[in-house]
């Protein structure tokens, strides 16, 4: 069987159709960062450990480093860059600012994207539910207490949690 070397594909990234030619071994993370200029998803490990690259694929949080871009073709992808509306922070983003759920900030986009998908499903979570939901993201500054506070506060605050 001959492997197709180049694929002409499109993605719906943050609501916009983006067309490009990709190679079959490229990850979604590479495509976002290196070819679409969206560096908000971070490459912390490139091996499904840290969650810094978390984006939403059809509203489900995924490690972008573990999704081959060809698998995601034609699908809706939301990155951290797609959360603001009219220059206003998304309630979860605002909550991370207000509750200092941030230190160095490298893991922050990943945490916020995971939290986003979680709060979509769980309206009034308990602290334990928040912990379980975010257990696939690592923060080495270990701002965990403040991250939990931020997510809980966002769940109390926002009508609009949807990305």
């Amino acid at each position, binding site marked *: 069987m001959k492997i197709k070397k180049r694929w002409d594909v499109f993605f719906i990234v943050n609501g916009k159709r983006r067309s490009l030619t990709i190679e079959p071994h490229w990850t979604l993370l590479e495509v976002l960062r290196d070819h679409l200029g969206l*560096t908000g998803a971070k490459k*912390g490990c490139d091996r499904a450990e840290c969650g810094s690259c978390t984006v939403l694929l059809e509203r489900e949080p995924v490690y972008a480093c573990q999704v081959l871009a060809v698998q995601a073709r034609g699908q809706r992808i939301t990155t951290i860059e797609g959360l603001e509306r009219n220059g206003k922070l998304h309630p979860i983003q605002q909550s991370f600012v207000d509750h*200092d759920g*941030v230190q*160095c*900030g490298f893991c922050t986009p990943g945490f916020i994207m995971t939290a986003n998908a979680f709060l979509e499903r769980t309206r009034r979570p308990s602290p334990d539910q928040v912990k379980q939901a975010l257990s696939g993201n690592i923060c*080495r500054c*270990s701002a965990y207490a*403040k991250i939990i506070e931020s997510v809980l506060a966002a769940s109390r605050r926002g009508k609009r949690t949807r990305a």
Partner: protein
Amino acid sequence: MPRSLAVVGKSLTRLGAAEKVTGRLQYTGDLKLPGMLHGKILRSPHPHARIVSIDTSAAEAMPGVVAVITPKDIPPNRRLQSDLAVLDWTVRFVGDEVAAVAAVREDIAEAALERIRVEYEILPALFDPLEAMKPDAFPIHPGGNLAGKPIVLERGSVEAGFAQSQHIFEGTYTTQVHCAAGMEPRAALARWEGDSLTIWKSSRGVHMVDRPALAQGLGIPAEQVRVICPAMGGGFGSKDETRMGTLCALLARKCGKPVRLEYTREEEFIAGRSRHPSITHLKVGISRSGEITAIHARTIMSKGAYMSSGNAVIRRCGQGSLYLYRTPNAKYEGTLVYTNLPVAGSYRALGAPQGQFALEVHMDKIAEALSLDPLEFRRRHHVQPEGQPGERQTPPGELVSDQPVEGGIPFSSNRLSECLRLGAKAIGWQRRWHSPNSSPGHQKRGLGMAMGLYRGGLAHKAGAEVEVHPDGSVEIRVGTIDVGEGAFTTLLQIGAEALGIEPSRVSILGGDTATTPEAPVTSGSSTTFSMGTAVKEAATTLREKILDRVCAHMGTSRESVSWNKGAIQITRPTKKKVSWKEAVALLSPEERRVRVEIRPGSTEFVINSFAAHFAEVEVDTETGKVTVVKYVAAHDSGRIVNPVAAQNQVEGGVIQMLGFALTEELLTDLKTGVTLNGNFLEHKVPVIVDLPPLKTIFVNAPDPAGPFGAKALGEPPSIPVAPAISNAIYNAIGIRFQDLPITPDKILDKLRLQERD
């Protein structure tokens, strides 16, 4: 300070928070330049070998490969540190740099590494520092395997102290290789314009570390090197190695194009800088009346292949033994030994967590032997505000070290007894502490505690520039970097407070050698104290200038003007208010800018920060699992500049070091020297489900020497964690753990022995 504080002590929102939550903040690996190439590093597969030959022809012939660099390209004596060449003909650990490639794509560069043929002559490898330090051991460096001169420090005479003692307690303690593992892997991006280099890189010291090392490694004057750290994705002290930046710059020079080099996660673990593993032997003498007559600590640390910042690490390891407990006689001996392991370097609090782990477990054992509650023992014996007994050695008028050996010098402030009192109360020590191994069932609970002391934040020098623009906005320029801890927020608050204006008018710029004054490394928890003092001084000078100008302009004297909510109130000759902007307009462009350089410190006092931590754990004797049920961290870091950020910093330090205490270790195969677990999951960094209920307490009493009363805070939280946990485990199951990390397998092994006895 007569006026009350308006900005210091308030939880100002962290600077750059909005950029971080939107993903807009660009870290080095996010930067791109037109025509940029990608670099990759070839690493040694052998722990110790001489390179006989390197053939790069096949790699160079690959389409897309632009340049290859090997030791052949490095002029002899082009060194980054005395034991570290830019590239060397000898490799000293598995992962040591051999060659570097630049290509149009990262995957091509990676593929090219496999086409470089290297012939090695294998040399004997040493992984155990005790073996490596033997006189006949095979030398890893030309001068032998002792890295630097062993240090010996003594106050009084421990020999005399032991002679006066009734009991002598001895013990040996070990700690593991522990990686900082910041979320951002190291990255660099280099661009040449003629003979001048601009390099963006992960760095905690653009002025003092990267710039001189790059200039040295490239053979160009420092003025031709501009280093910029755009943002740090976690520092923890570890990002100060310099080979990567130099290789990136050399590739860019050879290609005539910008080159970006990023470490993989595995490289970050192996070729980054880890916490030195340590072996500490402690000997403590106790007199008939229960006084500590002498403390003698001896530490041996495995350096790995290169010195890095080992000198500072080994020194800091001894400070707890020299100074945390009141005793006329204390001695510390520290030895660094080269081994063929990944390089150990700076990591949060350097050697202090290792040294104070040994000390605080040892003191817990002594308390028990003397039938004293561990808290009571510490209350009786910890160093008091008047300092250590003995005579001052530092000549009068000279700055006192914040890591002194001598006695006879009081602390600027020492609220350790408050830390003990408040922490004990919060965890319910009096009510809940019990004798060891006395709770029933297989889930046994125990309470433990430990103290910690650390330098208060003196840097060799610190500089800051404060400039007010005609529109009234103020820019603070510092040469340090916010490594993610929030230092810039703190410095901005100090600047705004000193100026007497709203923080929203102030911005801060740092981490760029071209636009900021010389500054120390963001290290030793020195930013708040030292840089804060420099910022405060520059801001105060500017404020005074403005007031003088206003007085001259209005024909009044200084007694008749006062600061009122960011404006200047004049009471005589007529009552009038001058706005900040009007006042600023009176200054000439030169007058609007103040630059200071200071040597921070005190000639009268030792400046130290203190902590007491308390932990409650539950040990499952069937699985060996340790759960931290409750944790209390009480700190004396002087006045807290930003309470929320400070709390975040303490919580983060505690959780990071719960990993050091219980789970984390970088493992090496001792036959091959290969790192076995260079990744997050197997190195086992704590995740969010590991977060215990955690309470942070600040004594929050201003230090007379610190800027607005502040002292060091960044590293102290990492010091008492491991001993507090080990002591709590002892209290739960009656077994001492003197070797870190305390993993379930070690617990189960010892429980089986306990059953047998």
